[in-house]
């Protein structure tokens, strides 16, 4: 093997503290190195030309570049090798910038270190093999998990792009959090008026299969060929028959059923359609509240249903969907404010969450859009809004900013004034965060046109006082204590990861942060990708987002999928594991530790042998570490390559 070594100056970045010429000189002494030189900018056009020329002149069949981190230019140089007619994998990099010249001043020590890093790169390269990416076909269907605004956008864009779409939603209707909102900032236009039509489009688009009241049970397979089991929970209503007329709800006797959709302000019936614009507009029964399902008597709905759709015997069913990509848009949940003792820990009826307040504001809400105190139904005059409840607070494990609370609080003060002209809103805030188009102007309007009083400071206690509430806090701008008496307190509760997010992440094999939000592929450059090929993120499941950003991400994720599906075949990374059959004794230890189920046990001349499913293997090498006799090896990270590096560094 003829190896060429190129030691980069990177201007003065490396040359400044490393004697690159000396490193090149040392490299000439390494096994199989036939050419070594230092070069000003290896990645520049002339630099790459130099490499190509050397490959030709010295009949190199392997190249080592000592420069910056491989994360920076590995692909650049692999392409250079291809242009020179070599296999792109006959290449190794020695990181002598980030790991040497930038972290040490001692030129002698740096030079020695750089020379050794080049040496281990050479030792590794000596045992590299030419690799070629394999190809596999893809199933051009996409599954979208979560029917909130992000999921809806993604679904519509994919469907318009001609893809078959499967949309899975946990609740009986799509719409997500947005469908619960009354108005949206900063335009104060009606939430359901802008979301409603999109929801209808979903139901009418022939390319979209909708599974509501459904959850993902398990996910197998890999990019291009996922196999997803979906649990369709029993609605106790045959939706193929149900016309959504609502007769059943009208007659249902158990009227005290807690109303999930209305955030438990007000009640609903055991059988119901969550809200007027629900998609699909189908009734479903809450088994915990239904007299028939709990006590075995009633059946009022059966009597009135003109379609005869009620089916108390209905059971969960598992449907299997085969898709090539998955977009996760499972959204967020609201922080449980009862953790805050000083806000009454949930003991005071008129201390409510911002989402509950939205329902009070909403014309389709439990109060037909009249703001009434939950305790006595009176119209509140003085309303205190407290921001950052469950945001930016280390003490309760929520150090992050939920991003949208400042804006929706301002919106709610404006709506409050519209509903009750003689009302007064007070807002306790820490900082105002309104970095969006028209956002800060909107906050100003709330303050200046609608007279919301903004007080910079935290609230120390909420105490009932003669049917009202005394809110004690501090005004950090005035530097004194404030006390406000109010009829209603609205807590701007922050966003937290959707319930069950970690469990879903494990099924999908994607990673999540310590708060349960899903990890994007790269914080800047891969905002909607995950580290698992073929799985994308949209909306608040990746971190709190307002509607515009969620919609944008939904679209972005869709375009990623369309891009992925624009090819008929996908290339698989060839740096994967492979089995030496005669060494394999079929003990299946590799199979048991593979995180991706990429190893299957097969029969070979009557013996059990492990074999790697090339398209599933992600190249982590866990199997290689687990195989006692080293029968399964991860190419380009084989035992011998790593041993060669160790032996080079520690020659006894």
């Amino acid at each position, binding site marked *: 093997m003829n190896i060429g070594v190129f030691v980069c100056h990177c201007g003065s970045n490396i040359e400044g503290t490393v004697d690159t010429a000396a490193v090149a000189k040392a490299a000439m002494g390494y096994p199989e190195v036939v050419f070594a030189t230092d070069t000003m900018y290896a990645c520049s056009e002339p630099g790459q030309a130099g490499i190509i020329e050397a490959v030709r002149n010295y009949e190199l069949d392997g190249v080592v570049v000592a420069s910056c981190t491989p994360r920076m230019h590995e692909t650049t140089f692999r392409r250079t090798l291809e242009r020179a007619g070599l296999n792109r994998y006959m290449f190794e990099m020695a990181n002598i910038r980030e790991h040497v010249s930038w972290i040490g001043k001692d030129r002698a020590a740096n030079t020695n270190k750089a020379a050794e890093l080049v040496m281990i790169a050479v030792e590794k390269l000596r045992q590299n093999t030419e690799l070629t990416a394999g190809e596999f076909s893809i199933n051009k269907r996409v599954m979208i998990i979560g029917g909130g605004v992000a999921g809806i956008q993604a679904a519509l864009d994919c469907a318009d792009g001609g893809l078959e779409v499967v949309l899975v939603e946990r609740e009986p209707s799509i719409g997500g959090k947005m469908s619960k909102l009354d108005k949206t900032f900063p335009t104060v236009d009606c939430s359901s008026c802008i979301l409603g039509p999109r929801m209808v489009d979903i139901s009418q688009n022939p390319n979209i299969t909708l599974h509501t009241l459904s959850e993902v049970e398990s996910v197998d397979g890999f990019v291009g060929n996922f196999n997803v089991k979906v649990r369709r929970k029993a609605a106790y209503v045959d939706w193929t028959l149900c016309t959504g007329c609502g007769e059943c709800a009208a007659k249902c006797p158990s009227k005290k059923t807690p109303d999930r959709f209305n955030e438990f302000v007000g009640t609903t019936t055991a059988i119901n359609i969550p809200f007027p614009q629900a998609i699909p507009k189908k009734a479903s029964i809450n088994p915990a509240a239904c007299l028939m399902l709990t006590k075995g008597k009633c059946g009022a709905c059966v009597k009135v249903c003109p379609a005869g759709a009620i089916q108390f015997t209905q059971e969960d069913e598992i449907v299997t969907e085969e898709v090539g990509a998955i977009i996760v848009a499972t959204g967020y949940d609201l922080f449980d404010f009862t953790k805050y003792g000083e806000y009454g*820990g949930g003991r005071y009826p008129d201390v409510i969450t911002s989402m509950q307040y939205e329902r009070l504001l909403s014309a389709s809400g439990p109060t037909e859009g009249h703001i009434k105190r939950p305790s006595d139904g009176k119209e509140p005059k003085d309303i205190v809004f407290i921001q950052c409840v469950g945001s930016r607070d280390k003490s309760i494990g929520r150090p992050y900013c939920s991003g949208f609370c400042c804006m929706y609080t301002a919106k709610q003060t404006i709506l409050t004034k519209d509903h009750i002209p003689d009302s007064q809103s007070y807002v306790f805030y820490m900082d105002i965060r309104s970095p969006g188009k028209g956002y800060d102007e909107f906050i100003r309007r709330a303050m200046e046109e609608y007279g919301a009083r903004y007080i910079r400071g935290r609230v120390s*206690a909420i105490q009932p006082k003669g049917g009202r509430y005394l809110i004690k806090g501090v005004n950090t701008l005035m530097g004194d204590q404030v006390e406000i008496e109010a009829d209603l307190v609205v807590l701007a509760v922050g966003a937290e990861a959707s319930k069950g997010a970690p469990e879903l992440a494990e099924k999908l094999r994607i990673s999540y942060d310590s708060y349960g939000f899903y990890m994007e592929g790269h914080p800047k450059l891969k905002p909607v990708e995950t580290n698992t090929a073929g799985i994308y993120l949209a909306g608040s499941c990746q971190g709190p987002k307002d509607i515009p950003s969620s919609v944008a991400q939904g679209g972005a994720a869709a375009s990623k999928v369309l891009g992925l599906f624009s090819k008929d075949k996908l290339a698989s990374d060839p740096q994967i594991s492979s089995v030496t059959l005669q060494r394999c004794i079929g003990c299946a230890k590799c199979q048991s530790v593979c995180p991706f189920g990429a190893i299957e046990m097969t029969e070979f001349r009557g013996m059990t042998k492990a074999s790697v499913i090339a398209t599933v293997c992600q190249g982590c090498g866990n199997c290689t570490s687990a195989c006692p006799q080293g029968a399964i090896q991860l190419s380009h990270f084989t035992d011998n390559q790593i041993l060669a590096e160790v032996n080079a560094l520690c020659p006894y």
Partner: protein
Amino acid sequence: MTRSRYAYYPGCSGQGTSREYDSSTRAMCQDLGFELIDIPDWNCCGSTPAHAVDHLLSASLVARNLAIAEDMDVDGIITPCPSCLKNLKTTQHRMLRPEFHAEVQKVLGRVVRADLPIKSVLQVLVEDAGIERIAQESTAPLTGLKVVPYYGCIMNRPPDVMRFDDPENPMALDNILTAIGIEVLPFALKTDCCGASLGTTRRDVVARLSGRVLDAAAAAGADAIVTACPLCQMNLDMRQAQINKANGSHHRLPVFYYSQLIMLAAGQLGERIGLDKLCVSPFSLLSSLGSQTGEARS
């Protein structure tokens, strides 16, 4: 219940303004089988003034008491006064820092381990004796009495130092009082400040803060307020007239120490309970509850 032998730190007020708290506490502990041994030659904990000016000074004042207690072969140190408790525990907390620990020992000129458990009498009551035990002891439950429990602001704060009960909505007193037949009303101002340390310097503040507590108690429909803190008790009881004057209110709310009520419920009367030491007389209220406790008058 295991043997409990405690070093007892009465605190200054126990010698003066809250004699009845001290005596009823001792009586209560005796009945419940705690062995209290006064820390010999104990000194003032420094209360609020000391730590306001110098942490080392305030810590050293406390540490001397800890040191003495450490020679006593006891299970821990207990005190009825939350203010003393705060100083004792804060000092112990601060002395977790080796440098500070060393400094304090230098000042004292002796070794202080500062590792004895330090608890309020209330905490010991709940944790060692237990609510059931107290319920058993109450032979003459104070049925019909309606009270609000007032814990004051420092009993459970700061939580990571005090490590007892909920800082925002404590329940220890509520549970004990309920156990002895008293009706405990929900009370949002449980942990508000009464203005304690400003008692002499800023009466207006006390009038406002303590006044609010009295108003809220009355509004809640309470016959009386129950405290576990000499300073709270003093402000609400001794200064009640002042406060009424300042706020134009007309409260006549007896302010009990919980220890007094436990003893009453246990059928104990007389000197040790010191009901006669309360400024707002509780006797008419108690007699209205029926003959048994009414005899308290005698």
